[in-house]
C-alpha cells in the first residue's frame, strides 16, 4: 500500500537570504571578538584618560576636600628627608571618600604614613597591594575612617581617604627620603606639585599598568588648596648660590652651613615643580663613602653609599662624526609655552651641529612625520630648512610616542656612524614601560638623550628614557634655560668622562651591590654605588677604576666610621634595588618581578608598585555610604586645555593620525554623473548601430 508522503519542498529563497544574513552577522561578531593573544593581561586595568572637573551644584557635598599641602624638607648632606602633610576637611553635609592623584619625586623612597584624625593618630601599615585594597574597601564599608596610599607610577601616587564625615579634619602625613646627587658641582632638589594630564593611547599594551584618571581644573582656574614648603639645609660646607627658577624664596643663612628657606610667592604655587638649586663651598661637592651600622639585632643589615666625583672632562682630540635624530613631541599638551621652549632648544641643538654630522627630525603627535627619508648632512641649508619646519609647527593631537620611536628605529643608518636620538617631550603619556622596552631592544642602533620640556615634566619617562638608552636626562623649564642645556648635551656627547668603570672594596665584605655593572660616567655626574656590608670597616677602601680620555683612571676612597643614624641608606638601597627590578620588569613585560619587589617593599616598609600603605581607624563612625570625590588638579603652568580635551583633527596644526576617508561627496557625484553620461552615450551608439 502506497504511503502518503509530503512532497519535499525546497527551502524558501527568503530562508536562504535570512541564513546568509545570520551567517554574516556571526562572522562579523567572530571577527570583532577575535584578537591576537596577549600575555598575562587578565588582571590588567588600562590607563584612564584625564578629564576636566565639572563643578557640582550639590551644596551638601564638598567636592574639593583637600584644603592644603604642607611640605617640610630637611636636607643633611646629600640626603633629603621630606614630610608631606595633606590636609582634608569635609565642609559638606555628607560623608565623602576623597581620591587625590599627586606626584612625587622619581627617586623618593616613601617609608612611612600617619593619619591624624582629631586628636588621634593612626600609623599606616605596609601591605601587599591587593590585600591593602581589600582592607581599605572593608573598612570603608564598615564606616571606619581609612586611608590608602598606592603607587601608580614611580612618580605618581594615589591617596584615598574614606569616610571623612562632615566637619572632620584629617591630616595625612607621608614621609620619604631621597638622594640629592650633585651634577657638575650643583645640587638640585625637586618637589613636583602636579601630575600633568597623561595621554592614554588606545593601542597601549597592558604591561604599562593602570593609571587613574586625573580630574583637572579648566585652564586659568586656580586650585582652592594652599601649598606651602619649607627647607632646612644642613651641609658640611657653606651653602652658596641658592636659587629657584620656579618659585620665589625667602632665604636665611646663605653662606653658612645652615640655611632655612621658605616660599615667598603670593600667587599660585602648586601648578609647577618646585626646583631648588644650590652649591657647596664654591665648586666643591660633599662626596665620599657613607656607612650605616644597624643596631645589634639578629639579621641586622649594614648599608653603604658611595658618591664619587668623576675627573674633570678633557677636550677630545678627535671627534667622530655622529648622526642625530631629533624626535619632537608636537601634541596638544605641548601647545603654546612648552612648544615655544622646545623650538628655542632645537634651534640651539641643531645650529650647533658640525658640518661632518648628519641629522634628521621626526615630529610626532597622533602620527609622525620625518624631515627626510634619511639623515641629511648638517649643512647650513639643511639646518635652515629643519628650523623653518620646526618653526611652522603648532601643537595639537594625541601623543603616540611608541609608533614614533618605532619609526626612528626603522630609519636607515650607515654602519660606521654612531647615532644619538634626542627626544624632546613633556612626557605626558601612560606608556612608559613600552617606551623603555622599545629603547632597550634597539640599543645597538642608538643611544637616547631625553629633554623634558615644561613646568611639570613626567620625570619618570624622561629619566627612564635616558637610563634605558644609556644617555642623559635634561629638564628645560623655560626658553631662557634652553641654551645651557643644549651646551651640556654637546659636552656630554663629545666625550664620556669615564668608561668601563669597575668598583671594588678592600678590607670589608660587601654584597647586594647596586648597580651590578656601572654605566659610563657623563660629564659632571658622580658615580653612585649602593650596597650592604659586614665585618669591620676600619681601614677599608673603595677603589674605582675606569678609562678616562687621558688614560686609565683610579680613585681611592677611605671608609669613614659607621653612622648609626644614617638609616636613610637602608631605604635608599632598597629603593634603588626596586627601581632596578622595575626596569627589568619593564623590559620583560608582564609582572615578572612582582614577588621580589613585594618582598623588598614589605621587608623595608617601602611604597612600591606592589605594596601600599593602609591606615584604618578602629572606630565605626558612620552607617551612611561615603560619596566618592575626585580632588581636581590645576593644569600645569604653561599647559593649555588641548592637553586634556579631545581635539578635532581639522582644528589642529600638528601631525594627526591619518585615516582613509572616502572621497568627498561632491566629487563622488561628479564621477557618477560622468559615468552615467558615458553609459548613456554607449547605449545610444549601440542603438544607432542596431538601426
Amino acid at each position, binding site marked *: 500500500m502506497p504511503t502518503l508522503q509530503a512532497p519535499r519542498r525546497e527551502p524558501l529563497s527568503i530562508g536562504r537570504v535570512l541564513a546568509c544574513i545570520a551567517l554574516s552577522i556571526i562572522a562579523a561578531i567572530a571577527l570583532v571578538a577575535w584578537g591576537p593573544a596577549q600575555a598575562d593581561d587578565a588582571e590588567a586595568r588600562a590607563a584612564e584618560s584625564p578629564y576636566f572637573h565639572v563643578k557640582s551644584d550639590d551644596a551638601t557635598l564638598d567636592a574639593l576636600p583637600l584644603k592644603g599641602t604642607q611640605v617640610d624638607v630637611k636636607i643633611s648632606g646629600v640626603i633629603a628627608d621630606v614630610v608631606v602633610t595633606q590636609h582634608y576637611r569635609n565642609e559638606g553635609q555628607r560623608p565623602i571618600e576623597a581620591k587625590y592623584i599627586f606626584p612625587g619625586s622619581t627617586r623618593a623612597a616613601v617609608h612611612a604614613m600617619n593619619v591624624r584624625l582629631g586628636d588621634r593618630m593612626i600609623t599606616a601599615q605596609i601591605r601587599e597591594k591587593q590585600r591593602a585594597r581589600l582592607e581599605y574597601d572593608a573598612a570603608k564599608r564598615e564606616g571606619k575612617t581609612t586611608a590608602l596610599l598606592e603607587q601608580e607610577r614611580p612618580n605618581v601616587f594615589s591617596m584615598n581617604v574614606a569616610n571623612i564625615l562632615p566637619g572632620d579634619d584629617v591630616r595625612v602625613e607621608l614621609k620619604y627620603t631621597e638622594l640629592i646627587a650633585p651634577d657638575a658641582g650643583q645640587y638640585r632638589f625637586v618637589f613636583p606639585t602636579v601630575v600633568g594630564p597623561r595621554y592614554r593611547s588606545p593601542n597601549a599594551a597592558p604591561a604599562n599598568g593602570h593609571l587613574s584618571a586625573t580630574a583637572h581644573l579648566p585652564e586659568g582656574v586656580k586650585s582652592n588648596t594652599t601649598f606651602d614648603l619649607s627647607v632646612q639645609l644642613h651641609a658640611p660646607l657653606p651653602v652658596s648660590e641658592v636659587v629657584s627658577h620656579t618659585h620665589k624664596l625667602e632665604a636665611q643663612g646663605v653662606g653658612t652651613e645652615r640655611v632655612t628657606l621658605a616660599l615667598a610667592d603670593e600667587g599660585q604655587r602648586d601648578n609647577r615643580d618646585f626646583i631648588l638649586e644650590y652649591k657647596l663651598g664654591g665648586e666643591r661637592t660633599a662626596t665620599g663613602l657613607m656607612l650605616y651600622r644597624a643596631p645589634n639585632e639578629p639579621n641586622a643589615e649594614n648599608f653603604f653609599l658611595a658618591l664619587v666625583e668623576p675627573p674633570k672632562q678633557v677636550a677630545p682630540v678627535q671627534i667622530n662624526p655622529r648622526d642625530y635624530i631629533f624626535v619632537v613631541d608636537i601634541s596638544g599638551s605641548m601647545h603654546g609655552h612648552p612648544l615655544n621652549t622646545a623650538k628655542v632648544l632645537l634651534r640651539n641643538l641643531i645650529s650647533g651641529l658640525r658640518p661632518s654630522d648628519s641629522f634628521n627630525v621626526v615630529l610626532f603627535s597622533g602620527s609622525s612625520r620625518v624631515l627626510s627619508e634619511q639623515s641629511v648632512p648638517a649643512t647650513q641649508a639643511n639646518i635652515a630648512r629643519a628650523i623653518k619646519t620646526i618653526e611652522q609647527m603648532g601643537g595639537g593631537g594625541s601623543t603616540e610616542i611608541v609608533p614614533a620611536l618605532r619609526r626612528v628605529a*626603522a630609519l636607515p643608518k650607515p654602519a660606521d656612524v654612531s647615532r644619538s636620538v634626542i627626544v624632546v617631550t613633556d612626557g605626558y603619556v601612560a606608556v612608559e614601560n613600552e617606551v623603555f622596552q622599545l629603547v632597550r631592544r634597539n640599543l645597538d642602533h642608538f643611544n637616547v638623550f631625553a629633554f623634558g620640556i615644561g613646568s611639570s615634566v613626567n620625570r619618570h619617562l624622561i629619566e627612564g628614557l635616558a637610563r634605558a638608552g644609556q644617555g642623559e636626562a635634561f629638564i628645560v623649564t623655560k626658553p631662557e634655560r634652553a641654551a645651557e642645556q643644549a651646551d651640556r648635551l654637546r659636552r656630554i656627547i663629545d666625550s664620556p668622562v669615564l668608561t668601563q668603570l669597575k668598583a671594588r672594596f678592600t678590607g670589608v665584605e660587601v654584597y647586594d651591590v647596586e648597580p651590578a655593572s656601572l654605566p659610563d660616567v657623563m660629564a659632571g655626574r658622580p658615580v653612585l654605588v649602593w650596597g650592604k656590608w659586614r665585618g669591620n670597616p676600619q681601614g677599608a677602601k673603595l677603589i674605582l677604576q675606569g678609562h678616562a680620555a687621558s688614560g686609565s683612571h683610579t680613585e681611592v676612597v677611605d671608609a669613614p666610621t659607621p653612622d648609626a643614624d644614617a638609616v636613610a641608606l637602608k631605604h635608599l638601597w632598597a629603593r634603588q634595588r626596586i627601581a632596578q627590578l622595575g626596569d627589568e620588569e619593564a623590559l620583560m613585560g608582564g609582572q615578572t618581578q612582582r614577588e621580589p619587589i613585594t618582598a623588598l617593599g614589605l621587608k623595608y616598609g617601602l611604597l612600591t608598585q606592589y605594596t601600599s600603605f593602609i591606615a584604618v581607624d578602629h572606630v565605626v563612625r558612620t552607617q551612611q555610604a561615603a560619596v566618592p570625590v575626585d580632588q581636581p588638579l590645576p593644569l600645569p603652568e604653561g599647559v593649555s586645555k588641548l592637553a586634556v580635551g579631545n581635539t578635532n583633527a581639522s582644528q589642529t596644526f600638528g601631525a594627526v593620525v*591619518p585615516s*582613509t*576617508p*572616502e572621497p*568627498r561627496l561632491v566629487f563622488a557625484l561628479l564621477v557618477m554623473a560622468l559615468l552615467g553620461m558615458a553609459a548613456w552615450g554607449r547605449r545610444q551608439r549601440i542603438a544607432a548601430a542596431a538601426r
Partner: protein
Amino acid sequence: VSLAHTLSCRPVRVGALDWLALHALALWPHGAYLIQRAADGSDDPLGLLALAAVAALVVWHRHGLRVTPRLGWLVASMAVAIAANGAWWAGVPALLASLFAALSLVCALLAWWPATQVRLPLAGLVLLALPWIASLQFYLGFPLRVITAQLSAWGLQAAGFDATRSGASMLVNGQLVIVDAPCSGVQMAWLAYFTACAAAAATGLSDRLFARRAAMVGAIVLLGNVLRNSVLVALESRPAGLSAAWHEAIGLAVLAAVCVAVLALVQRKEAPHV
C-alpha cells in the same frame, strides 16, 4: 443604476500622475523630514538624488502608466500611508515612520506601473531616498571598519608589509592609521546600489535577475573598499605620507571602478539555460 447616478454626482477621473502626486502630498511630513535631514547636515543629501531618479523614471514611463490602477496595490498603499502618518503622529522614530511612507509610495507606484517595466529597481530607488547613511554609519560602521581593516591587514601582509589590526586601527610599518567612520564604505555602498538600481531600471533587467545580482553588488563594494583602504594605508605608511589630493584621486578612481563593475554586472546578459 450606479451609486453616482443615485447620488446625482459624476465620477471624477484621476490620472496616474495626479494620483501619485496627491499620494506623495499625503506623505508630506516624511518629505519634510527628508528635506530637513538633507539641509541640516545630519545626513548626506543623497536621498534627494534617489527621489529625483524615481521622478525621472515616472516621467519617462508616463505614457505607459496604467489607466486603471491595480486595486490591491492601491488599497495597500493607502493602508500603509495611514500607518506611516499614524506612526509619525504617534512619535515612532522618524526614520521608521519614513520607511512606512517609502513602502506606501512603492505600493502606489506599483499600482500604476506598466506591467512590462521592472519593479524591484524602482522600489530600491524609493528606499534609497531615505536618510540611511548616518544610521548605517552608526550601527554598521564599526563592523564594516573592522572587516575592512582586517582584510586590508591580511592583504598588506601578503604584499610584504608589517601590518597588524587593532580594533578599527591599523599599524603599518610602525605607522598608526585609523580606519574611522568616513572609511567604512557606506557612501560607496549607497552609490553602488544607486547605480545598480538606476542601470537596472534603464535597461529593464528582470526583477529575478536584479535580486540575484544585488547581493553581488555588496561583495563588489566590500572588495572595492578594502582595495581603496589598502592602497591608501600602504601609501600613508611611507615617511612622506600622502597628500589630500592623492587621497581624493585614489578614492575616486576606486569608486569609478566599482561603479563600472556594477554597471557591467547589471548589464550582463543572462547565460542561456542548457
